[in-house]
C-alpha cells in the first residue's frame, strides 16, 4: 500500500507520531483517575488531531479514520459528553496500540494491514454499543476510501490522479462565499418585486432603494429586536456552557466556539426582563464589535430570521421597553406592521458591565 508513498516521508511521519504517543497514553491514564485534567486531555486531542491531519495529507485514509475514532472519544470526554470510565480507557489504549502497529506495518511494507483496521473498527463499535452486524460494511467503507487515496496508486498512474474529479472545485469558486450567496438570494427577491409583486414597505419607487443592510431578528420576552448582521458571526443552538463561579447571574458561563473561549451572556437576564426562558428554541449569537476586538456570545429567546431592510427609518423608541433595554436601543423600526427595536450592539458590548466579562 505504500508503493507510491515516499519512504522518507513515512519515516518522518512515524517519528512524529511516536513523539506524541507517550503524551497521549499518559493523558488516557488520567481519564478515570482525575476528572480535573481538562487541559491535559485537550492537548491529547490536539496531538491526535495532528496525527489525523498528517495521515490525511499523506493519503493514509484508513489511519485517518482510526485516528478520528480516538479523537471523537477524547473530544466527548473533554466536552463532558462521554463517560470517564475504565471501558473508555481500555478502548483508547487498545486503539493507540493498534495505531502504532499499523504504522509499523506500513514501514515494513506489509501489504494493506486490513486486519488492524478490522480490529479497531470492531473495538470502537463495541465501545459505542453499535451492532456487530454492520462491522464488515464499516470496514469495507474505510478500505474503499483507502483505495482511492494517493498512496495506493500504482507508479505511472498519474493520469488517473489528475483526472480525479475535484471534490471541492465547484464549492471553492471564489465568488461562492456566504456573502455572495446571500446577495444572490436578495437579488432574486428583488427581481420578484421588480416583476410586479407588492413592494415591501420601505422599498422606494423603481425598486432600487438604498439598502440599509441585513438584520438578524430575534425575540426577548415576547418583543422583537434586530441587530445588524455585520455584528453577527454565527447563529447556533445553545451549546454546552461551562459555568463560571463568582459572576453575575446574566453570565451563563463560557463556551468554546471553534477554539475561541467566549463568555455567554443571557441577554434576557441582563436586561432585567422576567426570569430566563430556557427552551429548545433558544439560540446563541456569536457577535463582535470594534472590528474583531470584542467577541462574545449572546443567548436570546428565539431567532426569527435574517431580513434585508431598505432605507431604514429609525425613530426614538417611545414604547415602553422591559427592564433597562432602552439604554441599548438605537431606535425602533416598523417592519411588516410590527415594531422592531434595533439593538445597538456596539453600545451593549462596550458597556462597562459587559466589558468586564468579555
Amino acid at each position, binding site marked *: 500500500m505504500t508503493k507510491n508513498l515516499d519512504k522518507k516521508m513515512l519515516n518522518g511521519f512515524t517519528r512524529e507520531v511516536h513523539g506524541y504517543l507517550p503524551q497521549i497514553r499518559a493523558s488516557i491514564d488520567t481519564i478515570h483517575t482525575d476528572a480535573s485534567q481538562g487541559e491535559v486531555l485537550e492537548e491529547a486531542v490536539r496531538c491526535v488531531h495532528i496525527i489525523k491531519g498528517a495521515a490525511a*495529507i499523506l493519503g493514509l*485514509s484508513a489511519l485517518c479514520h482510526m485516528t478520528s475514532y480516538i479523537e471523537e472519544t477524547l473530544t466527548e470526554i473533554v466536552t463532558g459528553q462521554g463517560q470517564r470510565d475504565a471501558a473508555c480507557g481500555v478502548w483508547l489504549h487498545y486503539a493507540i496500540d493498534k495505531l502504532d502497529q499499523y504504522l509499523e506495518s506500513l514501514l515494513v511494507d506489509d501489504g494493506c494491514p486490513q486486519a488492524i483496521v478490522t480490529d479497531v473498527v470492531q473495538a470502537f463499535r463495541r465501545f459505542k454499543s453499535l451492532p456487530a452486524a454492520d462491522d464488515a460494511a464499516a470496514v469495507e467503507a474505510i478500505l474503499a476510501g483507502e483505495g482511492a487515496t494517493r498512496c495506493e496508486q500504482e507508479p505511472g498512474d498519474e493520469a488517473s490522479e489528475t483526472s480525479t474529479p*475535484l471534490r471541492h472545485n465547484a464549492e471553492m469558486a471564489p465568488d461562492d462565499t456566504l456573502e455572495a450567496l446571500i446577495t444572490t438570494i436578495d437579488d432574486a427577491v428583488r427581481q420578484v418585486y421588480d416583476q410586479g409583486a407588492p413592494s415591501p414597505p420601505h422599498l422606494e419607487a423603481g425598486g432600487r432603494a438604498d439598502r440599509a443592510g441585513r438584520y438578524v431578528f430575534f425575540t426577548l420576552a415576547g418583543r422583537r429586536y434586530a441587530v445588524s448582521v455585520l455584528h453577527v458571526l454565527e447563529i447556533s443552538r445553545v451549546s454546552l456552557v461551562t459555568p463560571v463561579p463568582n459572576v453575575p447571574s446574566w453570565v451563563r458561563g463560557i463556551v468554546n466556539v471553534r477554539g475561541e473561549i467566549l463568555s455567554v451572556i443571557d441577554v434576557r437576564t441582563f436586561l432585567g426582563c422576567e426570569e430566563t426562558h430556557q427552551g429548545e428554541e433558544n439560540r446563541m449569537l456569536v457577535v463582535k464589535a470594534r472590528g474583531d476586538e470584542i467577541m462574545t456570545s449572546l443567548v436570546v429567546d428565539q431567532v426569527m430570521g435574517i431580513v434585508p431592510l431598505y432605507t431604514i427609518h429609525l425613530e426614538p423608541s417611545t414604547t415602553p421597553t422591559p427592564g433597562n433595554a432602552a439604554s441599548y436601543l438605537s431606535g425602533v423600526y416598523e417592519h411588516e406592521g410590527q415594531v422592531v427595536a434595533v439593538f445597538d450592539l456596539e453600545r451593549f458590548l462596550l458597556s462597562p458591565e459587559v466589558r468586564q466579562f468579555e
Partner: protein
Amino acid sequence: MSKILVVDDSPTARAFMVDTLSSTGHHILTAVDGEEALHKASTERPDLILLDVVMPGKNGFHVCRQLKAEATTKGIKIILVTSKNQQSDRAWGLKQGADAYIAKPFDTAELFVTIAQCL
C-alpha cells in the same frame, strides 16, 4: 514566481506541502504556529498562505481574522487547509476572510487549482 507560506504544526504536513509545491517553482516558506505565521506574514509578505486551523496558541481562524484586519497584510490570499471538514467549518472559515478552504484529505490537483485561482 510567488511566495507561499505554509503554516502547520505537523512537521510531516509541512514537509509534504513543501515537497508537493516544490515542483511549482514558487518560493515556499514555513511556519509552525499562528504566532510565527503572523510574524512571517508581516516580514516576508508572502503572496499566499496555506493555513492550518487547529494549532496551539492562535488558531488558523484567529490568524486569518488578524491578517485580514491589518491594512498591510489584508491583501495576502489565505487558503485554510484543515481536516475540520464540516460545512459549518467551511462557512466559518470563509466568514473569517479566507479566500478558499480545502479539507484534508485533498487531491494534489485540487490544491494546485485552488492555489492558481488565488494567485
